[in-house]
């Protein structure tokens, strides 16, 4: 076989650069990087849950409040990472009144919280509270990722309380071939997991996500890290905030996780024509009555586009719209392109469906 030419001098330089970077980041990585949230107040608390109301920054252009239902996985502050990277701030700037459910960090005593509890108790109380606070009969519900699944189920359970529904990067059809998370977890004994841990540790979940693309999310990211940590202050701050957010992964309440995996991963319940049992009702996605705006990322590796776009044929003939962002999973929530284009599109879509 032909020998491969090697630029020895360049390689030597690169090895030295790597060492130098590793030395330099020692001081950078030790610097603190505080999270500066958009001004808000806590409207309601229940256990570790907090319902947040954000201060308006401009005159309201939409009357019906927008309630964001984030996933139980990771923390919602990716939507408000910094003043320069904040979906919430951008929505407020469009004149949309924004509320957010922060599920918090479930403790050991929450291991018996079920999916029913999350939907018919916690989420329902948040919706009621937002309606009371805003003097509105219903909310515009925006579900993010797993929160999107919650929002779909909630809208089916309580159609009168949801005026419009927005799903972001939401897994609907989990049987699609590129939905790697489902394949990777197929042989994991979820019952054993809940018996062992009570709540599934966030740390373990994080590692599971890394296992979806181990080289890209592991080694490649770390190779780039040393360079980013030696860049300008803004890059370092953004990098460290993203890292903090990625590591800030709450544990998942055991019973609710068991219910969720069983229904939506193993049984692919949302795609079931016969429907599925939840909270004492039989739910069928095709009976969804609210207008739906479905937003997903063209390059999403965690929830592939086809897992989200499965809503379209299911809701054929209904008020269904979709926005496909040229971004990955996190990019849809926090990327520059999404932050610029999505908020005005969401405002327009909501305005068109606002009651006279």
């Amino acid at each position, binding site marked *: 076989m032909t020998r491969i030419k090697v630029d020895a001098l360049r390689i030597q330089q690169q*090895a030295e650069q790597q060492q130098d970077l590793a030395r330099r980041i020692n001081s950078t990585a030790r610097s603190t990087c505080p999270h500066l949230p958009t001004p808000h107040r806590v409207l309601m608390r229940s256990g570790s849950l907090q319902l947040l109301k954000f201060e308006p920054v401009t005159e309201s252009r939409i009357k019906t409040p927008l309630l964001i239902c984030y996933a139980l996985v990771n923390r919602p502050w990716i939507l408000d990472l910094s003043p320069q990277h904040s979906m919430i701030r951008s929505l407020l700037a469009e004149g949309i009144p924004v509320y957010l459910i922060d599920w918090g960090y479930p403790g050991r005593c929450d291991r018996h919280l079920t999916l029913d509890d999350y939907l018919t108790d916690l989420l329902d109380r948040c919706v009621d509270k937002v309606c009371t606070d805003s003097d509105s009969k219903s909310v515009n519900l925006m579900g993010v990722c797993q929160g999107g699944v919650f929002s779909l189920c909630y809208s089916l359970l309580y159609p009168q309380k949801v005026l419009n529904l927005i799903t972001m990067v939401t897994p609907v059809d989990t049987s699609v071939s590129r939905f790697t998370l489902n*394949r990777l977890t197929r042989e994991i004994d979820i019952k054993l997991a809940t018996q062992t*841990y009570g709540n599934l540790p966030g740390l373990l979940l994080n590692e599971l996500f890394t296992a979806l693309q181990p*080289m890209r999310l592991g080694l490649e990211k770390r190779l780039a890290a040393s360079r980013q940590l030696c860049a300008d202050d803004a890059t370092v701050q953004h990098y460290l905030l993203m890292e903090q957010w990625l590591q800030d992964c709450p544990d998942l309440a055991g019973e609710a996780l068991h219910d969720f995996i069983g229904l939506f991963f193993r049984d692919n319940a949302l795609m079931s024509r016969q429907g599925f049992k939840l909270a004492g009702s039989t739910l069928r996605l095709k009976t969804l009555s609210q207008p739906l705006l479905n937003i997903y990322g063209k390059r999403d590796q965690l929830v592939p586009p086809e897992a989200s776009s499965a809503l379209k044929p299911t809701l054929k003939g209904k008020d269904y719209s979709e926005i496909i962002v040229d971004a990955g999973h996190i990019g849809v929530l926090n990327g520059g392109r999404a932050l610029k284009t999505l908020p005005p599109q969401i405002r327009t879509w909501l305005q068109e469906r606002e009651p006279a």
Partner: protein
Amino acid sequence: MSEQLLNMMRQWLEQLEQGQNSPHASRYWQELQSQLSQNASEGVSPLQADLLYRITRQSEHFRHFAADLLKLCDEQQSIAPEQLIDSFRQHLDQLSLDWVLSNWPLPEQLAATLALLTGQDSPLHAGLKQLNPLLQQLLGILEPQLQPSVLQQLRNNLNLLEAFERARERYLLQLGHINSEALVRLGHELAGSSISDLEQLHHLWFRCYEECYQQRLNQQDYQQAFGALCNAAMAMRQGWQQQLDLLYARCGLVTLSQYDELSRQHHELRRRVRMLERQQGSAPQGHPPHSKDSHDAN
């Protein structure tokens, strides 16, 4: 595991075997404690400590790989493809080993012991391999003093540790297959080209690897090996927790399973209260709510 630490543990165990009253046993134990505490972290936040650790370790791997590559270069500054692939394989094996063990949290006590025993220069899997015989030896020494039920539980736990080790090796085999397939692909990509940038080489590798990984991930044997590793780690952890529950119960303390049961009952009551509140809210004023809750039958 550092040789010094390993020797200290062996010496301590030998003294224990000679009897608890051995004059040297407590001295060895103190030295061992002192050695272990020297490895404690410096008070950096866990996130930053982890980041620093991972990047430092990766930087070391990177430097070693670069040095190996330079050694393999001939006077014309070229390298045989087989040698390059072989060197890269060794480099990747190290990364895989680090990755697998860091992925699956062991019971805290075991993980802490492993973290302390494993030095920067010693691969993590060596620590795990050495730990099991040490624990077997310790169990042998303690056997006469232990009650049969405790002994049985400890034996079960060591069996679970062995099962975890087998599952880990089975999974490592899968990773080995992926590495081999990806290396073949990398070899094809590199044919006739030159290496002037190590980062580009890594990026090419990431692409080759992810393609092979995604293919393998769709296969049932990979999913089974991955699931078996997760399940073995969890079973081991559950076994250790049951052991702790047994010890807590003997001391008259509330066990985790008792606490869980109380939490379950609390949630049942909370649901009932919520239902009654709803019924009360929807009932016409002046009429008591009609409850359909199954508890009413009691």
